């Protein structure tokens, strides 16, 4: 695999990028042309002769030496092997769990057209208006509590997020209150923070309790009445007026709490635009929402056309908006391109260190302990308990891929078996990952590959040419937002 790239940005500037240090160096065009000719197989003499027609021969000679020096210095050990998932990694993740999410109920007082558990999809357990029992949750909490008391728990006072998810979680308020009271009685050193995602239909009823327990609340709302019109009641009636009034009520009753603890998430689709969403929330609530696209996995075969009609690409919308700069600035972290840029910068740029210990790495140390693909170590981000007692590493994963269950007799989580299954997938995928140029920054979760149950292959694989195109995009993005590099390096904390 090559490590040294010479690219021309969309604005016509020339850069050298080396995967060894992850830095873009602005270069003289002669250097770029030398590389192009060299890559075509031209010898030194021909290159010097060809370029001397356009540039001074002294310059061409100098840049040829410079080119050779750069190439000699650009030696990197490629990632040609990946580590395997081990039971200790999973146990460590459980001991230091960041977020425990309960699917409080699969019932919902809305029937949104694009809902991930709705008519467009078929990769979830059948919705039966179930309510998660406190007993099931308690079994899981007890199980995890034993991990949290092990010496492997090195999380200190790091927050532990206890999240409530649905369906609509506020439909099962007794469960929420019981779990809150369990955690308030637990002797754990970590700071427990409660959070929930809600459609806000019942927000006015429970806001006092949520405020009292310092909940972080994420409200789903897609913008104005028209933009929000996929969010409807089962009878087809729009939900906007009720949600809007409830949010205003919370805003007026607890302005400080609203400011610090309430945020919004909008789904991006064919009825709204990034700009319409951002300007609505700015005007109405002085907030910037997160914006997410529709889930592209698990679409029913007979709904693919409808999905195609509803789905919109957020990045495309931002890039083609007249207010692109405004949106990039406002959505900095949530804009897909900015996110991709930050991720790229943090993974490739060798001046990024996770912690102080990395300052001690030996020069030229390119050893990367990485699993194939961008799949997380199970439970390293969160643990999701479904209403049916299934244990998943994330709520965005199809429920058929559950890793364990909470049963009558207790928690069943076979860590050895989980590792075996993951390693099987990884083994099949690693032959792609080994030669993929973006393998350092990969975000591809294996569970989001449609081929996971068949002959697994990666749809985001990048060969040399793809990577060069990607670098070109990154360089152009930096040029168009000259602050982005400084911001990514100085201001962004990736946790």
């Amino acid at each position: 695999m090559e490590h040294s790239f010479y690219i021309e940005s969309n604005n016509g500037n020339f850069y050298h990028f080396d995967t060894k240090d992850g830095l873009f160096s602005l270069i003289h065009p002669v250097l770029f042309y030398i590389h192009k000719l060299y890559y075509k197989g031209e010898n030194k003499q021909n290159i010097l002769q060809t370029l001397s027609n356009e540039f001074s021969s002294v310059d061409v000679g100098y840049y040829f030496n410079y080119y050779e020096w750069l190439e000699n210095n650009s030696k990197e050990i490629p990632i040609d092997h990946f580590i395997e998932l081990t039971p200790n990694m999973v146990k460590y993740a459980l001991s230091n769990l960041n977020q425990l999410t309960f699917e409080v109920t699969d019932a919902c007082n809305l029937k949104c057209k694009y809902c991930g558990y709705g008519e467009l999809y078929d990769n979830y357990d059948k919705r039966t208006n179930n309510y998660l029992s406190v007993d099931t949750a308690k079994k899981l909490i007890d199980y995890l509590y034993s991990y949290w008391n092990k010496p492997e728990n090195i999380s200190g006072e790091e927050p532990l997020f206890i999240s409530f998810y649905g369906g609509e979680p506020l439909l099962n308020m007794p469960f929420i209150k019981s779990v809150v009271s369990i955690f308030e009685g637990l002797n754990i050193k970590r700071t427990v923070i409660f959070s929930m995602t809600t459609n806000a239909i019942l927000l006015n009823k429970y806001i006092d309790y949520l405020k009292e327990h310092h909940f972080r609340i994420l409200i789903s709302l897609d913008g104005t009445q028209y933009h929000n019109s996929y969010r409807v009641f089962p009878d087809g009636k729009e939900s906007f007026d009720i949600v809007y009034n409830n949010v205003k009520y919370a805003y007026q009753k607890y302005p400080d709490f609203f400011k610090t603890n309430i945020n919004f998430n909008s789904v991006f689709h064919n009825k709204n635009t990034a700009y319409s969403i951002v300007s609505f929330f700015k005007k109405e609530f002085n907030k910037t929402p997160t914006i997410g696209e529709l889930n592209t996995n698990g679409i029913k075969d007979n709904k693919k056309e409808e999905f195609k009609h509803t789905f919109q690409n957020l990045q495309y919308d931002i890039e083609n908006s007249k207010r692109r700069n405004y949106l990039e600035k406002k959505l900095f972290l949530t804009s897909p391109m900015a996110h991709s840029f930050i991720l790229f910068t943090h993974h490739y740029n060798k001046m990024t260190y996770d912690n102080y210990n990395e300052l001690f790495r030996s020069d030229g140390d390119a050893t990367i302990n990485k699993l194939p693909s961008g799949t997380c170590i199970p439970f390293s981000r969160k643990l999701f308990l479904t209403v049916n007692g299934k244990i998943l590493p994330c709520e965005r994963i199809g429920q058929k891929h559950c890793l364990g269950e909470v049963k009558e007799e207790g928690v069943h989580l076979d860590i050895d078996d989980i590792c075996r299954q993951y390693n099987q997938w990884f083994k099949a995928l690693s032959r792609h990952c080994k030669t993929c140029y973006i393998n350092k920054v990969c975000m591809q979760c294996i569970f989001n590959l449609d081929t996971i149950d068949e002959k697994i292959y990666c749809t985001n694989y990048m060969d040399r040419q793809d990577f060069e195109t990607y670098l070109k995009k990154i360089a152009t993005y930096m040029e168009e937002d000259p602050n982005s590099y400084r911001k990514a390096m100085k201001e962004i904390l990736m946790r």
Partner: protein
Amino acid sequence: MKNTMEYKYWIVISPYVYIVCYNNNYLLYNTMNGKHIEGDDKEIAEVITKLTMDNAHWMCPITEDNDSIDHFVNDIKEKFIGDRIEAEYIHSAVQSYPIKNIQRDIKRYKGNIDYNTDNNIIRYVHELSIYVNSDCPSKCKNCDKTYKQYLFCHKNAESTSINKEALLSFLRKQKLPSLYRINILGGNIWEYDNLSELRTELLSFENISLYLYTNIFNFDPSIINKITPREYIVVLVEVNDKPIEEKFFAHEKIQYQFFVSSNKAIENVYEIIETYRLCNYQMKPLYIGNNDEFFRQNVYINKDDIFAKIHSFDNIFRNGTLNCNYFGHLYVMADGLVYSNIDKKPLGIISKDNIDDIIRKELQYGKTWFKIRNNIKPCNNCLFNNLCPPLSNIEKSMKRNDLCLINKEK
């Protein structure tokens, strides 16, 4: 940054170059080949100031040529430090430039309501030095001086021994994933009643090596037969102008550390090394209050020393962030008090405190792990402060921070 027709060309410094500029003095250092430019030309200093401003991306447009800029351009090109690129080839260009980005830098958490600190600070314990007792029959002349400069045995008037149970309970509360070395010191460690049990317990920690420190006067070579594979003996020898009478043993498990305070002492050490064919040894300069000249001759560094090796950005950022002589090292004294530097106030006590609370205290308020040359006089205004070896307790004993000849070379 907009291009204007009046710009003739741009000076572009490559992102792998380290730049420092104080009061018109500047240094540009190529971290890939070690070549550098040092100067004090006002005009060049202005160019450097401009190109290192936020968002200048280490590029500076030039409107007029002159001799000093021409000379500078030739110099940066020759050393592959940077380039001159005609304005016609630059179209709102940017590039990467060095920004130290430590994601879990404690300074970045200030004011962050979700994260008071890094979660995994326990990983910062790399080395533990445990003083098991304070008794010793020997009467070494520099006992009070040596242990303040180096890891060295030390006796107290008051006889104390560490509480083994309290120590082990303190160390076992949390897993110490980066701990790789434990040093056992005294007093005379061989007189500590629980030494054997303690060694066994400490060796049960994963991936650690155990170093037993003993003064040569207390060293019985027969102990070598009782050393396990992950144990080593460090024999401390203070050498002065007089010949040493003790015997030495060339053994892979025995490391001799010679503490020298004069040129004659160095000669004596070389003689010992030759006589006994020692290969596992270290020689360390000891300040005894009146041997400044010895230090000037043997320890003080000059620019040639600094540029004798190539400094990577990891190296430069490390020196600008933390002190690698101290970082990660905790001392547990025989009375149970825990220090990051025995010359400072204790951070806690093994019977009451958790190790992560102690680390947090050092990270947030401590004055040892982050004691760097950028923050102390006179090094704070020196161009080479991030290329220099970090501060140690020798500087503290000598009451001067700049053990160097750089200012005198000017």
